[in-house]
């Protein structure tokens, strides 16, 4: 023990280290977010926050829920694989109402407790009045030309025309109905 007689200052110093380490642990506990390290060296909750970004495009399934007549017309034509919002623009708000309410804590509890059915994105909640946000009728002179103006860079099999020669300035929908563009399918209604 005689070797430790004069070692008091070392123990005091070690005590200080332990104290500093404890303070570090306490501070760390409060400043590191709870979800950090949940899945890896990042904040797990970040994914939820990114996923909470509001959507702008509703997706064609939502459109076809109500506009089944157009969907049927489109199905048989060459534009069958062109989705609604490719031409009509982003219309989530037309489907879900001008402001998409975030689920409150109570709704989330109900879902958790199995008392409520989680919102099914395929059948989006319809706006009480879809007419509050309505699509603007696209200008076919711009819209059709965007895809169908002839260019050597486009795939050879893709239907393309030189607009000035093709229609002599007439609007496209005089002859082609955009939802089913074959001429025998009729012009604009």
């Amino acid at each position, binding site marked *: 023990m005689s070797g430790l007689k004069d070692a008091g200052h070392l123990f005091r110093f070690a005590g200080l280290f332990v104290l500093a380490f404890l303070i570090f642990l306490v501070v760390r506990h409060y400043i590191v977010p709870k979800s950090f390290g949940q899945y890896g*060296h*990042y904040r797990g909750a*970040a994914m*939820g926050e990114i*996923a909470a970004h509001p*959507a*702008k495009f509703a997706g064609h399934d939502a459109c076809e829920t109500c506009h089944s007549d157009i969907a049927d017309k489109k199905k048989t034509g060459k534009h069958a694989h062109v989705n609604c919002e*490719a031409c009509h623009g982003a219309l989530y708000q037309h489907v879900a109402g001008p402001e998409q309410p975030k689920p409150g804590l109570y709704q989330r509890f109900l879902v958790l407790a199995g008392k409520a059915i989680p919102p099914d*994105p395929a059948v989006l909640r319809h706006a009480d009045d879809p007419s509050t946000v309505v699509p603007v009728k696209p200008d076919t002179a711009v819209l059709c030309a965007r895809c169908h103006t002839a*260019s050597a860079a486009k795939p050879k099999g893709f239907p393309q025309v030189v607009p000035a020669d093709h229609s002599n300035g007439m609007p496209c929908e005089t002859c082609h109905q955009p939802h089913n563009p074959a001429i025998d399918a009729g012009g604009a209604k």
Partner: protein
Amino acid sequence: MNISRRQMLVLLPAAAVAWKFVLAETPEQSPNYKMSDHWWGMLIDIPKCIGCGNCVRACRTENDVPEGFYRTWVERYHVSDEDMTNPEVISPEGGENGFPVAVEDSKKYFFVPKMCNHCADSPCTQVCPVGATFISPDGVVLVDPKYCLGCAYCVQACPYGCRYIHPKKEVADKCTLCYHRITQGLTTACCEVCPTGARQLVDLKDPKDPIHEFLKTHAVQVLKPQMATGAKAFYNGLDGSVR
């Protein structure tokens, strides 16, 4: 507000559970979505791309991408068959407003849509000094804007040039593969509006996804395979001149 005893009995445990839910910082994803069931990627079918720019516009709208920056863009290649190493590449405004009409000549033309490759071994996430960018368990490379310092190390590290510093938020920003959409069962905005199906969201963990058959039967490549990034943007019909 008058609350009856019966309502109170429902509300109290509700509040207790909800509070725990909030404290746990549980991601606000769709309750039906399980991260471990997915491994996302993208199929880009070059022979189908017509360079209309729908994807670029839709991405800007969907994700509030600031003017002058692009999470996805389209390039037009013009390549001589004798000199594949010097292609002429243009991408006016990222292809957002289409391309000038190309006149047929002796060289070949084609469009190449570009975006984050959501690499499985991404260089960008490896260099982040603070754990602000990461590969999610479902294979999407994301940025945590609350943790990002804006040091731009990841912007330099990305071999595909897919990241930028957001001019207002001053943090790194990039394609999220529309994480807010795919976790709800929707496809990405660019895939939704692509008129020719040149872009398709793929889930490599879904055995029913047609991507498996496609990869088996087509000559599919990734960009810069020599960098071993594990890129998950699969290009069909990719020309050797594409950088």
